[in-house]
Structure formats: structure tokens, C-alpha cells
């Protein structure tokens, strides 16, 4: 599979189909038993963890906040790949972090402790942190889990604009197939560790495909307003 600059790709598939594993491979955390990963033309295997992190950023599904860092401090952690060992964050870093927080709409939370935030607010902070890494590729593993309808839409709007305006390549794992179909340029459907279907949302999200891959009978019709695929469970 491949993904291009400015593309928003949706990764869908049943539990255990290998979506998270795919991300780990793209991020260099796991070595593929077969095949090679190329990042901007260069093989991933040759890069150090730090180099990869400077190009690929991940917003993980689970989060662990042991210590009460402030939002600003958490976002600044994203600058790690670009700093030396004893270097402290400078003005440029602060600016980049600020910008990331504005994009992710959490700049008003800057001085609050991460422990005080709601699930949705935390999600936005983590997105800001990923953006602070100044990545070329953004990986998001089920980022809308804790968000309500409005924030889910806002999330996809944000990612979509990041892709088109900043040329970010984003891969989003989501169980929200309708929303993914609405915003993603392409959808990749995984089944049992292999790509089952790949293409535009209309091509991939069909009743047969969903029924076959998810093992759940559905009817896929068109969203009357957006004309994108809509999944109805029957």
C-alpha cells in the first residue's frame, strides 16, 4: 500500500485485523517479516527512532498520564525528535507548540494540568503534541473514541484541513465508517492481516464488502446530503 502527501486515508476493519499492527510497522516499532517500508523514498529500517519520530507522528489510542504535567509541557514533549541531549526548548519550539495547540483548539488549556481535562480535551492535546513533532505523516489510532458527535465532526474537519493546507499525509484508524467515508480520500479495508479492498470510499464501502469482512449483514446506501456511503445495520 502507499499514501501520498496531502492524502487522508481511512483504515477500517474488524477487531484483530491488524490495524494497530500496521501502524506500528509504519512507525518502525515492528519489523515486517516480509516487505519494506519506504518513507519519503528512503527505507525505514535505516533510520533511528528519533529520525522516524521527526517524520512520523502517532496519536495513540490509550494514554497514560502518570505525572501532572501541564498541557503546554505535554505538547512541548513533541519537540523531542528535534532537540539535542542537553538542549532546552527555545522560542522556536514554544512558537511551534503554540501553533499546534491553536490548530488543535486547545491553546486555552495551556496552563492546566493534564489530569484535569476531559477525554475529548486530552485527545486534542495529544493531537497538538503529534503536530508539534512537525511530522510529514500523521497516524491516528481510533482518535474519536471519546468524542461526542460534534467533536467527531470537528476532528475530521481539522485533519482534513491539515492534509489539504499543510500537505500532511494522514492515516486514520476508525470504527466510525460513515464519518471516515465522508472525509477520507481513500479507504483501506483490512481483513485478517491482509488488505481486502482499497480505493475511494464509494468503491470500498459496499454492503458486500462490509458483510464479508465484518461478518455483519448491512445495507450501504448514500448519505442524502454528502453523497458519501452510509452504513445501516440490518
Amino acid at each position, binding site marked *: 500500500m502507499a499514501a501520498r502527501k496531502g492524502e487522508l486515508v481511512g483504515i477500517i476493519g474488524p477487531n484483530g485485523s491488524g490495524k494497530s499492527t500496521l501502524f506500528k510497522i509504519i512507525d518502525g516499532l515492528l519489523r515486517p517479516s516480509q516487505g519494506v517500508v519506504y518513507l519519503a523514498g528512503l527505507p525505514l529500517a535505516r533510520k533511528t527512532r528519533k529520525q522516524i*519520530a521527526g517524520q512520523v507522528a502517532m496519536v*495513540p489510542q490509550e494514554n497514560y498520564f502518570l505525572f501532572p*504535567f501541564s498541557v503546554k509541557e505535554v505538547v512541548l*514533549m513533541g519537540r523531542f525528535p528535534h532537540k539535542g541531549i542537553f538542549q*532546552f526548548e527555545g522560542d522556536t519550539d514554544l512558537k511551534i507548540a503554540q501553533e499546534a495547540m491553536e490548530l488543535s483548539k486547545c491553546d486555552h488549556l495551556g496552563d492546566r494540568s493534564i489530569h484535569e481535562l476531559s477525554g475529548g480535551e486530552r485527545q486534542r492535546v495529544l493531537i497538538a503534541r503529534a503536530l508539534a513533532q512537525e511530522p510529514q505523516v500523521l497516524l491516528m489510532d481510533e482518535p474519536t473514541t471519546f468524542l461526542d458527535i460534534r467533536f467527531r465532526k470537528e476532528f475530521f474537519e481539522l485533519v482534513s484541513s491539515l492534509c489539504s493546507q499543510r500537505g500532511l499525509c494522514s492515516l486514520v484508524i476508525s470504527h466510525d465508517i460513515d464519518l471516515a467515508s465522508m472525509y477520507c480520500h481513500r479507504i483501506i479495508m483490512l481483513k485478517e492481516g491482509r488488505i481486502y479492498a482499497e480505493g475511494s470510499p464509494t468503491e470500498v464501502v459496499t454492503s458486500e464488502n462490509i458483510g464479508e469482512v465484518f461478518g455483519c449483514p448491512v445495507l450501504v446506501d448514500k448519505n442524502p446530503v454528502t453523497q458519501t456511503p452510509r452504513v445501516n445495520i440490518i
Partner: protein
Amino acid sequence: MAVSTKPVNLIRVIKVSGLMTLLLLLGILGALLLGTAEVGFRDLLDLLSGAEAKDQMSYLIIFKIRLPRIILAGLAGFSLSVGGAVFQAILRNPLAEPFILGVSSGAAFGAVLGITAGLGFGFGIPACAFAGALTTVAIVMMIARRKMGMESATTLLAGVIVNAFFTAIIMFFVATSTDDRLHTMLFWLYGDLSQSRMSESLVALPVVATGFFLLYAFARHLNLMAMGEEAALHMGVDVEKAKIYCFVAVSLITGLIVSFTGLIGFVGLIVPHILRMIIGPDHRLLLPASGLGGALFLIWADTLARTLVQPSELPVGVITAAMGAPFFIYLLRKKGGGHWH
């Protein structure tokens, strides 16, 4: 108070370190004044400024008894506290301190063997203790390290098991030793700073300084690793490398210190927590602050140990346990609840 409004920068680190160093120096001055023998403030100043001592005894007491002891206590407190902060971040566990991973039981086992064999405290027993510490650390690392690397939960478990095993063996020696050996063992097992010598501090100082320097290089890594190992990996931290370096550095320093001072617990547990509540969780600030705070804490614990039941002495580990726990509870209640996930 726990949340900093501005991210850490060099100036803040210097400011906080400077303040704590000042407190430490004041603490040392105070500790020099206290003891079973009387040494007045004026006399102390005279002695420190190099002037002629009023009597030989004051000179001996300050420079040959109290000062070496205070310095070793400071180095020990520094190492144990920094080690505690580092292990709490790496293992993501609030109860972690250097001893949890086998350093203490290994050193104790070595020391008990040395004491039973009749070796002296000049070189024999510290050498045995140090060897024991390193051996157990190696064992724990071997057990914990599998194909996927050192998972925190597994490492902790390995450390606990190794500790339990060696503690049982130590008890065997304690139970079957003759009276004279027994007293020495028991005193050592709870920390013994009496008869500390300058030479011990001189050996420990460069090791502690190097170790701290190495650990400080990983300070930012520790911040990220506290967010979870996967998250840290995603952000670019080579987690395995960081863990191994930090683990080995802490074990080396604490193994060395323990071989001189015996087992002193609680410092690595209490001091980093208290400081984290006051200055925040960024390790670039927390590591130097914990170190200096730990030094002050242990110097004063030892001062109490040698003055509370004059002319007798208590093992300093008893004091750290008695002081540490209630103070921590008080601070915890004041700040309103924990910060743990």
C-alpha cells in the same frame, strides 16, 4: 503549585539548584554543630576558617568524625533520591526506589557474607557488598530481559522475587551467627554511618557525579517515558537503551553507596515525591532537586540518629523510616489527593 506555568529552561534549573544547594550548606553547618560533644558556633567558624583550634578535641570531632560522616550521608542521600526519581519514571510505579530491583538484597547478602567471614570494613566488606549488588542486578536484568526487552511489570516482579530470595538467605545467616557478628549485621542492615571515613566519600564522589551526569542526559527521556513506553517510542525515545543505561547507572551508584553505608531505605521513595509536589514533574528540574533534597534529608536523619539517644546511636535507616512516612502522609493530605493515574 504542582503545575508549572512556564516550561523548564536552563535559568530555572540553575535557580532551583542554587536555592537547594544553599539550603544544603546551611543544613551541613547545622549538622556540624550537633552531637554528643559540645562544639560552639564560634569554635566551629574558627575551625572552618582554618584558624587554630581551641583544643585538639574539637578539631578531631569536627574534621575526623562529623564532617566525613555528613559528607558520606549527603552523597548517599543524593544517590538514593535521584535513583528513586529515575526508577519511578522508568517503572511508572510510585513505590519504586533503587532497592526494589535487588540492589539492596544483593549488597546485604554480600555484606553479611563478608561479616561472617570476619572481613573488615576498610575494604573487605564494602567489596563484597558491591559485588553482591552488581550480581543481583545482573540476575534481575537477565530474568526480566526477554525477546521484547525489559517490560516494566516483569522487571519489577523479577526484582521483588530476587529480593525475597536473598532476604531469606540473609535471615539464615542472621539466625545462625554468633553474637558479635549479629550486632554488626543488624546495624548494617539498617544503615550505619558511624565511623564513616573521608576516603569513602572521596571514592564515592566521582562515581556519583558521573552517574548523575549520565542520568541527567536522560532527563527528557524520562519525562516522555512517564507517558508510557509506546508513546515515548512514538515520540522518538529509544526506550530500551534509555532503560538499560539508567538502570545500570542507578544500580552502580546505589550499589557503591550501600556497600559503604549499609541499607538505608525510604529516601528514594519519599524525597522525590515531596519535591515533585513542590516543583513539578519535569525531570530536568526534579533530578537535581531530588538529589540535593535527598542529601539534606539524610544528613539530618543521620544527625538525629546520633543525637536522639545520646550517648548511644540508632541506625539511620530507623530514622528515615520513622521520619519519612508520617511527613509524606501530611504532605499528601495537604495537597489534596494523589496525582497518580
